[in-house]
């Protein structure tokens, strides 16, 4: 558990500077040394994560990260392949300072067989610029869905938008007819 929490902490801490730097690239105003502090719970141990990348144009960001496991399952280790980290979902809540004021960021990371299978932003920034960077960050860690023809997949049921009532479809068709006349 401690290892995976540490790892999640490192991932989050490594990603945060991207957001912070993005902010400063757009709005370089301040210049001060950076400092990053990360704490984990429930183990209570504290990890100090290396400061944000040096050489960046003025990063006056102070970042604190708190990580708590959201849910976790014990990895199966009955076979030869042994995971270094426990499978599970870990959430981290962070706040960091920007010229636009302190911003909040919640990140949820899912580890499976030592691979990060999902990263989700769970809390949004207050500032519009910071929000933009957070959204880009979130988008970069998502996969896109693709379709397969229903006939090519073995299914018992289909769930999606429920079929519309007859009256609704009739009305929609009537409008289409009006629009084309």
């Amino acid at each position: 558990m401690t290892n995976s929490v540490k790892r999640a902490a490192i991932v989050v801490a490594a990603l945060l500077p991207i957001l912070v730097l993005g902010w400063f690239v757009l709005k370089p105003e301040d210049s001060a040394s950076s400092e990053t502090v990360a704490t984990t719970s429930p183990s209570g141990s504290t990890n100090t994560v290396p400061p944000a990348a040096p050489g960046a144009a003025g990063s006056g960001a102070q970042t604190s990260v708190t990580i708590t496991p959201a849910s976790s399952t014990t990895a199966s280790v009955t076979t030869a392949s042994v995971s270094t980290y426990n499978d599970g979902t870990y959430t981290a809540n962070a706040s960091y300072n920007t010229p636009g004021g302190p911003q909040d960021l919640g990140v949820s990371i899912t580890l499976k067989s030592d691979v990060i299978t999902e990263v989700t932003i769970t809390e949004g920034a207050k500032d519009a610029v910071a929000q933009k960077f957070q959204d880009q960050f979130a988008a970069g860690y998502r996969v896109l869905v693709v379709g397969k023809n229903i006939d090519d997949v073995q299914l018992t049921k289909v769930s999606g938008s429920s079929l519309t009532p007859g009256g609704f479809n009739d009305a929609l068709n009537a409008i289409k007819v009006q629009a084309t006349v």
Partner: protein
Amino acid sequence: MVCRKDFEAIGTHWCIDLPEALDAQRVECVLKKIHDRIEEFDRAYSRFRVDSIVTQMSQQSGRFAFPADSASMMTFYRRLYDLTDGAVTPLIGNVLSDSGYDAAYSLQQKSMMVPKAWDEVIRFHGESIETSEPVLFDFGAAGKGYIVDIISDLIEAEGINSYCVDAGGDMRYRSVVDEPLRVGLEHPIDTKQVIGVASIVNRSICGSAMNRRAWGDFHHVIDPRTLTSPKHVLAVWVVAETTMIADGLTTALMFATPHVLLQEFDFEYAIVHADLSLSVSSSFPAEFFVT
């Protein structure tokens, strides 16, 4: 389990699977009870029929007797209302109707007004509701899931413990032999395709997509605070213990983060965003087709 009965009710297609071993007479008897129960539900909660309690409430204020089962649905709505800062509310009826989704399906937008706060209008006393003014309720967010649960309970009360109650893709499934049900997750843009397959055992799954019940600038979900339909999400699926919870959370997830809702409810979710990107909870029981 292949005794399948299809019918139309409350504006959607129903498909009920019962064990093959049941004799035909028994099946007809159970189906009769199901139809009667759906009719009773519709007569109370539908804003699309003139003789419903909901329609009466849109014409006058006062105290109205609701069916005994209303308490758990109203309590659930109140929790969603609080968790979504008022975005999920039964007071959305006038907004939906004025946007064009009215009893006559005019699909013509009229002037729309932000609904009042819950506590200003509704006093809920277990089996009755008191309103301070005429107001049109809409139970579209969780009502269908709730009637699926009610019908499932009715089937279980008949001693039938393997079944599937599917109301337009919102379904509850039980199998005494734990046989999984493969449920295709419809592509939110191309309904001839699926984007994944969920495998459900003894749970409920509900989906909500913005593609079909859509007109003008609106679809069937409207944010009462902005009077616009959210455009950032194309489809949401939720798997939960009950169909009411799964159904209500598909709408709630348009307005609140999974993080907030997971603090109150046990569920798994999958969200397809406007750019076709996917957010999925770690234990959502499905295989997805992704780039």
